[in-house]
């Protein structure tokens, strides 16, 4: 692909120049940053390069916010974090109860049309929903952007939930593409309790293991409804993405 750039720009030459500058610049090693003083001092390898005996991200795990040591503690943290983020989290016993909750939500909010994607969890919960529906991933036919924008809510599954931060991980390959979870005015996530993970580190690790060498083109951590503080640093929900976020936790 390199070299296939626009018209007159010589991509290969620019690449060679920049990489040569980088190599030249790094000939003199930089000292380690000043640290607060912990044991994992990295030793230099044979070439005088930094060689960390333990990866910083691994060392950091006990220092970051707690994700809970037990499933119960993680669940409590998730619920607390989602509430602080002004998302709604409900726990239901089974898929039938989840479908009842969604039907109630559609009536309460007076939603006219909800968008969805093919997934067993989504389909089970969507059965008998009292409004029109719009599927984004119908085979052979791309969805209409304006039609999706006009939908009141997008219903998706998720890759996992993160207790530590109250985040929901969605992937373009498994959760209805890129737009479904961001374009409609509300987002409803259907998840099962076994999808709850304590920390971001485990969520990233899990995503990599599930998708192996073929990563989805988008992996997105959603942490609460869309928000902005750009006007006088005052929090407003629903800046561009969903104003409301619901997590229906089954099991």
């Amino acid at each position, binding site marked *: *692909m*390199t070299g296939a*750039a*626009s*018209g*007159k*720009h010589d991509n290969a030459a620019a690449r060679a120049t*920049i990489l040569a500058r*980088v190599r030249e*610049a*790094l000939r003199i090693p*930089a000292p*380690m*940053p000043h*640290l*607060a003083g912990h044991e994992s001092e990295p030793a230099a390898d044979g070439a005088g*390069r930094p060689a*960390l005996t333990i990866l*910083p*991200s*691994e060392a*950091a795990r006990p*220092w*970051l916010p*707690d994700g809970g040591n037990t499933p119960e503690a993680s669940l409590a943290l998730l619920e607390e974090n989602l509430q602080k*983020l002004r998302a709604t989290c409900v726990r239901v016993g089974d898929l039938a109860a989840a479908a009842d909750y969604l039907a109630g939500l559609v009536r309460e909010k007076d939603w006219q049309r909800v968008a969805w994607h093919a997934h067993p969890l989504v389909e089970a919960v969507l059965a008998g929903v009292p409004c029109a529906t719009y599927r*984004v991933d119908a085979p052979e036919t791309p969805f209409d*952007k304006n039609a999706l*924008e006009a939908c009141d809510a997008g219903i998706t599954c998720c890759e996992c939930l993160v207790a*530590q*931060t*109250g985040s929901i991980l969605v992937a*373009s*390959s498994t959760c209805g*593409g*890129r737009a479904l979870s*961001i374009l409609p005015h509300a987002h409803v996530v259907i998840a099962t309790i076994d999808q709850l993970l304590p920390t*971001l580190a485990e969520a*990233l690790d899990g995503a*990599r293991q599930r998708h192996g060498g073929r*990563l*989805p*083109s*988008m*992996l*997105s*951590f959603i*942490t609460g409804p*869309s928000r*902005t503080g*750009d*006007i*006088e*640093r005052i929090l*407003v929900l*629903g*800046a*561009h*993405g*969903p104003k409301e976020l619901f997590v229906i936790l089954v099991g």
Partner: protein
Amino acid sequence: MIAPTPGGSTAHTPEGHAPAAASAKKQFLHDAAEHVRDTGRRAFVRKALSGYYVSRDTQKARYRDWEHARDAASLAKWSAVNQLDTLLPKFVANFEANGGQVHWARNGEEAREIILGLLKNANARAVIKSKCMTSEEIHLNAAMEADGYGVVESDLGEFIQQLRGEPPYHFVFPCMHVRRDEISDLFGKHLGTAPTDSPEELTMIARKHLRRLYVEADVGITGANFLVAETGQISITENEGNARLTVALPRMHIAISGIEKVVEHLDDLAVLLPMLATAGAGQPMTCYNTLYAGPRREGECDGPEEMHLVLLDNARTALLADPEQRDALHCIRCGACLNVCPIFKNVGGFTYGTTYQGPIGSVITPHLRGLADWNHLSAASSLCGACTDVCPVRIDIHHHLLHNRRNAASTSPSWLEKQGQRFFAFVARRPWLFALCGWLGRKTLPLAKALRPPPLSAWLATRDLPPAPEKSFRAAWKARQR
């Protein structure tokens, strides 16, 4: 049709900066004096920041050990920056394997040329952008508008600044200096909306206006917060969802990133993403943290057909070549150092005249744009070290300001300063002369305060001097020892 930029984004570019003074330094002094007198605006900015301090401290308290977490974040960036020669090609290979195309730009001009070429090849007309400081750095909007493309900034703060014809005031909070009534008037003028004093209603006006534009745009342009070497993904952090929409709906995605944004492991983001959010905006996590690996894949129902990444040097390798200040490239652009800086709070964001304001901007701008013209930024510091204390990746910011001062003094010393130092050295080596000068100073100080001769007049214009002591320090010390 996407509305053209009213006012044009060239009106107040960092380099242009309205009434062009003889030098960046003169302009700085002029703008600083003006901003300092604007007590209303300063009080407004302080009030806007007061909520940030509370939420930042609340979120920091959720870390089991914030200081050690800073060590880890610092080490992750240090390790990546010092292995850039291997990690950069590794990232590029993985990014290309994911189906993305990489373009290398030695400077801003090349980057603009590459992007304009991509727009032309794609027959694009309308471009939607999410917040991207590297695009500000290379003055991309002005170049795209000159070529006839409709360009709209989608981040609320950037959208407001685009309508105002101003660059961002703060690289994380672009319009933090603008009051809601000014925004209401601005929207009334450009969008024809009714006046309101509700931030929520103002946000909804922008939401409604921009939603149509995401659907119509041909190309979406974003920045990148991290480039993950081991997976070839780029990570984009945002709160509003505008970047998600920018990368979901248009048929082409162009991302622009400095070469220093590489991290080695995906797992590094488990540390850096929450710390960026906490230090930058007092959040546990920014609302959307998204990893992109190439364009739409087979089997996915949407996404762009092409994904391009412009990797920008633009003198970053010059900073990389300075091992003493190389850690300035660890910066994750959280903006925490601006939010605590007494200079930033008093002189305001525009006074810097740079793309990157505040303490970190004062460190890196002399490297990116020349020490001779930009060293005055290193002097505009009280060296209090508040910036260094809050930096989540432990950049030694205030010492680097000192390093820049030293480098400037050794490369282009001022004749007067040199003579002054020489005179002081002469006096200080002769105890009798030192005592005599001290005695003279103590005796003549009241007279000097009354007559105010230059250069003392400059100091006394806004400050006072304490009364002269009766005895010298040495005499006082001797008396104390007895």
